[in-house]
């Protein structure tokens, strides 16, 4: 399986490295003792170790620890003995190591600011936090459990760290999460960070089967991980922190460390969580007017008749039945999450074994939206020799899901549901006589209509389709070896693989509106990533005041991807929904293989235990780089100065530290983008959809591809400087951290048009664009009160990022993303804005020096003078001809979905054994194009179309809140229902050109979580139930959203993590509100 094609010399060398001989045996030393908290309670899970020798263990439930130092290493020397546990200030003492028993007890003090916490810094390296000169945010397992979307480890990072922006696509089971760290740095791809689990990079692709706009939700692949197995998540944000990952680190790196066993008695934990989900909000719909047009009823009664799609009909008579089509499709969803873990070990062997079962049944009726995940994991280490430890982490994930058609898709759930007139009953969704789908536009289907479109699908028919499924099996495993031949050198090797096969089907039955003849798509994705990471760490102390360390490393990585996509068109029989039951097939196969050979080195110097400097470089060779740029080097340097160690930490300031860092990271070009090749898939024809292919009448054809390969392509490069300060106050009971960064991304790859007459191609990839991101981050934690009975902790984070595309390529002002969004409101990267903004048209506005053709005024009229003196800047120009605004023909940026700032606020209160926690998530700015409202205005089902019986005046009851000016300002534009209908079905709705009118502020404050945990660890718990502690947790999630946004939710997006441009609202499902009950038993 592992066909990495290593040359013999490498294999031989690795073998030589690991076959080092053992040492001898003599009289050992046993180190033992007891660890307690300030209050005197025994502390379990405290790691007590002698770091210099790499030996240690963890305390048991009774706070006792014991470990043995092999006699070969016992020489009467002085060593440091360390005790550390998350949430407590670590302690270090010096003991003299002699044969026999050495006893030392610790009392640890609780702290929020953990200077001595060891954090993973990537590629097998680690460091105590105080010595790291760049920002690495840590999220621990308790925060993950409390998250709003705890099933997806990426979703669960929402609001936990500044400038780590997380958007979860919707509340549907299996929805993807989009995460972007310190702004997008590229104009192609979705800028998702590299995910590394236990030193093994894993795949986190989000790949929709049939396009992000429609189709169904798709998971981001990191969602396969069982969050119950996660110990901590560390986020390498800046280039200095992530430079060790070179050309894969441009978007930051998320390091996930899973739980491990430790020396001590075997521990058991069983957790069972039941979550009840409801939709937070449904679309506001009108219930006063029925199907029809111009105030006249529009239902039809004949067999196979087509009724109007509009709800611009007659007022409904009082008492006539009406239906809330936004609500009737939902019920209460239930997620059941059960996990068990067993862990323990002795001095030489540790293990952690776990299993997890998650069954999520979504909020949509019909039972065909679910996401089930089963996981097993074993992590173990064994100290084979005193100097040599082997280990392994093995996980298997099995996820299966059933999904519902969504989004911009006439067979999508909400598109048909919300457009249905209030007086039409969508039940039954099958015609009682013909047994075929009936919809409001096709209410009386006969047997002759098996391949006719229903206009829009009946939502209950959509929910009844059980043929959108995925089945995934994934293996994630690594072998580790650690060899410490002597005190000053250590070797670490990780060799691992991440392998999955995702097998999907997406089928549309007969009469589906988007493909009435039916279709079956089979999509199979196989991905294999193999990673070898070898480091040598050499440390040396020059006297007592200078510590140094050098890390040298090699990383080899191979990524292989295989995709087979087969589209089967036209069902033969109504069922089964399987490929062989279709008339014709179109297969597409895509394969890729990418290799990385990286070498890195870094040197660390610690001076007087107060100044710490790290300098490093990674030299990356990628198979995807152009031949003339086969390797690229990424340097970094950072420094941290704990000035309070020099000036003293008297009074309220217990610790103060300044830091500065500079680093470079990169982003590789796509596979094979250096190659010019022939095309079998070129199409010849016009933009109106009439095309023929290269293959004709049974003869295979080949033509030159439209995109030129670029053999000079090199990786994109980020250069980032960051400066910051960290303060601890009042004996570390409070802290404050401030960081400023400035990141410049150059050589950003983009496709540019080339002259066809000169080259024979239409476009070429070039290193052209420049993007900047600057920002500020604040993190503060306060522990205002702490006693044996009561603990209060408050924390907050604030992140601000200003992203800007500085330039794209000469003459290129924007790149459209044709698959993101819509004609008239499409995703783009535009010079002067952050990557991922929405382009479209607006109305003519005053005070902007516009010159456009105005009816009644003339061609290229001066808008500002037509608006008249005193017109507010930005006011709508209202024409005197029809008292309506005028559409500006020029297209530009209409919405920037990137927030101005984001913040998280959390609080914990412990009273005895009861712990309360809460979390708020804030976003300021970040515009959303409310395309759902645009469409519902047009179809006349939106609640705001109730205005149709009044006279319409712009700036008052139509486009309220807009300032108006010009000759028609304040005058009645609409006198009748028909006037309103004309407006909403043309310029004022989704069919209009001026989609800027549906752009809204997406700012929100979300109350993400409120929970209560009761921990029962009294003696009677053990004596009665045989467990050492029991936790009972009750929580509410997404309790409330404060927002001015008119649609379902400003957080959702039509495409999930497969879109760079967020901020499209178009008939995707809402987020959910949850009630959670969980029980955990520990032994």
């Amino acid at each position, binding site marked *: 399986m592992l066909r990495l*094609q290593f*040359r013999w*010399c*490498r294999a031989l*060398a690795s073998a*030589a*490295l690991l076959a*080092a*001989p053992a*040492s*001898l045996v003599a009289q050992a030393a046993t180190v033992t003792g007891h660890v307690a908290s300030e209050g005197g309670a025994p502390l379990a899970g405290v790691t007590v170790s002698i770091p210099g020798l790499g030996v240690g263990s963890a305390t048991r439930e009774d706070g006792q620890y014991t470990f043995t130092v092999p006699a*070969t290493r016992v020489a009467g020397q002085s060593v440091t003995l360390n005790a550390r546990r998350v949430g407590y200030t670590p302690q270090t003492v010096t003991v003299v190591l002699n044969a026999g028993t050495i006893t030392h007890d610790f009392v640890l003090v609780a702290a929020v600011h953990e200077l001595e916490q060891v954090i993973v810094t990537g590629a097998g390296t680690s460091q105590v936090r105080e010595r790291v000169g760049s920002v690495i945010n840590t999220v621990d397992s308790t925060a993950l459990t409390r998250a709003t979307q705890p099933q997806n480890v990426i979703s669960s990072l929402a609001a936990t760290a500044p400038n780590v922006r997380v958007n979860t696509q919707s509340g549907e089971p299996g929805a993807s999460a989009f995460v972007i760290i310190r702004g997008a740095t590229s104009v192609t791809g979705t800028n998702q960070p590299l995910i590394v689990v236990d030193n093994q990079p894993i795949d986190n692709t989000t790949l929709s089967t049939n396009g992000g706009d429609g189709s169904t939700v798709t998971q981001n692949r990191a969602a396969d991980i069982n969050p119950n197995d996660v110990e901590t998540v560390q986020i390498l944000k800046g280039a200095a922190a992530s430079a060790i990952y070179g050309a894969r680190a441009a978007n930051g790196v998320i390091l996930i460390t899973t739980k491990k066993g430790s020396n001590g008695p075997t521990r058991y934990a069983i957790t069972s969580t039941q979550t009840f989900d409801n939709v937070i909000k449904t679309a506001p719909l009108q219930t006063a007017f029925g199907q029809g047009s111009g105030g006249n009823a529009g239902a039809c009664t004949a067999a196979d008749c087509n009724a109007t799609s509009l709800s611009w009909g007659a007022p409904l008579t009082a008492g006539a039945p009406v239906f809330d089509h936004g609500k009737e499709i939902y019920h209460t969803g239930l997620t059941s999450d059960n996990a068990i873990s067993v862990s323990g070990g002795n001095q030489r062997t540790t293990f952690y074994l776990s299993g997890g079962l998650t069954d999520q049944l979504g909020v949509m009726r019909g039972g065909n939206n679910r996401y089930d995940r089963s996981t097993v994991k074993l992590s173990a280490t064994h100290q084979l020799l005193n100097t040599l430890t082997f280990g392994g982490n093995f996980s298997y994930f099995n996820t299966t899901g059933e999904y519902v058609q969504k989004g911009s898709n006439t067979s999508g759930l909400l598109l048909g549901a919300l457009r249905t007139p209030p007086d039409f009953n969508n039940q039954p969704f099958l015609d009682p006589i013909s047994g075929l789908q009936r919809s409001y536009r096709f209410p009386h289907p006969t047997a002759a209509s098996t391949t006719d479109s229903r206009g829009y699908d009946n939502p209950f028919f959509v929910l009844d389709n059980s043929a959108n499924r995925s089945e995934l099996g994934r293996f994630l495993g690594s072998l580790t070896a650690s060899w410490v*031949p002597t005190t000053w*050198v250590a*070797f670490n090797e990780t060799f691992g693989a991440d392998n999955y096969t995702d097998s999907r089907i997406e089928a549309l039955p007969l009469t589906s509106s988007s493909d009435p003849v039916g279709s079956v798509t089979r999509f199979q994705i196989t991905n294999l990533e193999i990673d070898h990471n*070898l480091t*040598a760490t050499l440390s040396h102390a020059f006297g007592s005041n200078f510590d140094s360390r050098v890390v*040298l490393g090699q990383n*080899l990585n191979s990524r292989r991807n295989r995709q087979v996509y087969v589209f089967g068109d036209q069902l033969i029989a109504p069922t089964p929904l399987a490929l062989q039951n279709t008339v014709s097939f*179109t297969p597409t196969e895509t394969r*890729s*293989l*990418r290799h990385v*050979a990286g070498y890195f080195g870094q040197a660390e110097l610690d001076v007087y235990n107060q100044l710490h400097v790290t300098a490093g470089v990674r030299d990356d060779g990628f*198979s995807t780089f152009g031949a003339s740029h*086969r390797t690229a080097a990424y340097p970094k340097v950072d420094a941290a100065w704990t000035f309070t160690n020099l000036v003293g930490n008297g009074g309220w300031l217990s610790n103060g530290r300044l830091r500065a860092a500079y680093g470079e990271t990169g982003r590789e070009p796509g596979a*094979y983008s250096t*190659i010019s*090749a*022939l*095309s*079998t898939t070129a*199409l*010849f*024809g*016009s*933009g*109106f*959809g*009439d095309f*023929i292919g*290269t*293959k*004709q*009448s*049974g*003869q295979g*054809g*080949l*033509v*030159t*591809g439209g995109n030129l390969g670029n053999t000079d392509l090199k990786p994109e490069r980020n250069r980032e400087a960051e400066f910051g300060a960290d303060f601890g106050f009042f004996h570390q009971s409070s802290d404050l951290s401030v960081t400023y960064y400035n990141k410049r991304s150059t050589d950003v790859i983009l496709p540019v*048009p080339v*002259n*066809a007459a*000169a*080259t*024979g191609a*239409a476009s070429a990839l070039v290193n052209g664009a420049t993007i900047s991101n600057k920002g500020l981050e604040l993190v503060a934690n306060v522990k205002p009160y702490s006693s044996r009975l009561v603990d209060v902790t408050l924390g907050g984070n604030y992140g601000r990022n200003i992203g800007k595309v500085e330039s794209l390529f000469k*003459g290129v002002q924007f790149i459209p993303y044709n698959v993101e969004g819509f004609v008239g409101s499409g995703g783009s990267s535009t010079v002067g804005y952050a990557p991922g903004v929405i382009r479209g048209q607006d109305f003519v506005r005053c005070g902007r020096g516009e010159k456009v053709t105005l009816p009644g005024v003339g061609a290229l009229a001066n808008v500002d003078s037509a608006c008249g003196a005193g017109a507010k800047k930005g006011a709508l120009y209202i024409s005197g001809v029809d008292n309506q605004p005028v559409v500006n023909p020029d297209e530009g940026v209409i919405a920037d979905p990137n927030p101005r700032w984001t913040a998280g606020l959390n609080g914990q209160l412990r009273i005895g054994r009861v712990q309360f926690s809460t979390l708020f998530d804030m976003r300021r700015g970040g515009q959303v194009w409310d395309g759902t409202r645009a469409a519902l205005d047009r179809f006349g089902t939106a609640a705001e179309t109730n205005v149709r019986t009044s006279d319409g005046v712009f700036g008052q009851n139509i486009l309220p809140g807009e300032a108006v000016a010009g000759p028609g300002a304040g005058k009645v534009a609409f006198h009748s229902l028909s006037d309103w209908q004309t407006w909403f079905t043309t310029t004022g709705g989704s069919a209009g050109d001026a989609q800027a009118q549906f752009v809204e502020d997406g700012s929100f404050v979300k109350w993400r979580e409120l929970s209560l945990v009761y921990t029962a660890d009294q003696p009677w718990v053990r004596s009665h139930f045989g467990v050492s502690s029991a936790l009972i947790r009750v929580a509410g999630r997404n309790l409330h959203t404060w927002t001015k946004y008119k649609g379902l939710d400003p957080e959702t997006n039509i495409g999930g993590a497969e879109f760079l441009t967020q901020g499209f609202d178009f008939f995707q499902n809402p987020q959910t509100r949850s009630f959670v009950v969980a029980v955990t038993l520990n032994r």
Partner: protein
Amino acid sequence: MTGALQSMRNITLAGALGAFALVAACSDNFLTGGELSTDPNRPTQATSAQLFVGVQASTWAELSSDMARVTGMWSQQLLGTNVQYVDLYHYGVSEQITNGFHSALYTGGGLVDIRRLEQQTAAAHDSVFHGVAEVMEALLMGTGADLFGALTYTRALTNDQNPPLDPQLAVYDTVQVLLSRAIVELGATGPTNAGPGVSDLAYGGDASKWIKLAHTLKARFLMHTAEVRPTVYATVASEAKVGIVDAADNFNAVFSGNAQEQNFWYQFDVVQRPGYIAPDPQFVALLKERTDPRLTTYFNADASDLSDARLAPDAPLPLVTANEGLLLWAEGLQRSGNDAGALTRLNQGRALAGLPAEAGTPTGRALLSEILLEEYIANFQSIEAWNLYKRTCTPNLTPVVAGKKIPARFPYDISERNTNTSIPPLSAQPARNANDPANTVSDGTGAACVGQ
């Protein structure tokens, strides 16, 4: 003992460090070779036959997709009845309306692959296939000159920063040279001259038919220059004479009817954009007035759309026909003073269309008018109807937008203009091409030309 232990440790350590250095220093072909350097999804080699299939598909699109529909509206054989087609019908000309058909002259399936085909067939000493490729190049670039005028040609595909435009008449001259050479090469015999064989979707590899096609194309493109080079008429006639005069030799785009192998008009008018085009009532009236049997072969019973036969997914689309050849012959003879010969060829053309011979023996302008009208009708669904109108102002069409002229060329693609400073901005591009000065009178009637 400690000493021995220490030295053993040191040896081990030295070995380990050496091994580590070896691992780190191992430079190998880890980054190149196999699927790392070769794209497993896209081929890089093609046989001449495979290139030729692609070239044919691309050429069919150039000649019979949007360009044919839009020029059909501008020559008032069709109406534009919905969305963008309403705008196009009303001469809404912008740099986007060509839909990429300017750059398609050069990109995959266009000149870049014709040149590749010419190189491969020359290397294989297959003169027949090489001649076929030259005919395709002449057809493509001649049509490009018809649509856009001056074109990048002599410096095409040289990777020049801003390749210059060749004057339009120079492009037509090159087209004649290519066709003359092709006619010679297509006559080659011998074992290496296998020709395209079954990859030739129109003629099945019949070189004699390609020779005829080359002659008719010579006549066509010479005729396109006749307005500024009136001496060409006799050569038009002599080339047309040895060209396609039998409907069995028609050069058609053929479609199997399978997915991505379907007639463009079927795809546009039936599948993708029903209701965007309709028969122009003036054109329908003209056919009725002449009791032309093509009224029912072109259109459906109530003349509200094209006929079902013309809108079948596998309906062939005529690109160069015997009817066109005979009428070029007739016009060439008439314009060089041979009315009697011209009438014979006109009647031959009428017979092909199912029309009786001309009543009486019209001569002079009356005869020319008959020939031109017949050309106008015969070239329905082809760019040639518009080329004829531009050249002769026949029929004497009234623009559908008062005060505007009927468009006489397409703007260059915006993508080409943006990437080549040799291409002037739209405002500086000519309204008419060099071969086509505005007519003062309609050649058919002698009346003042109203549309140019």
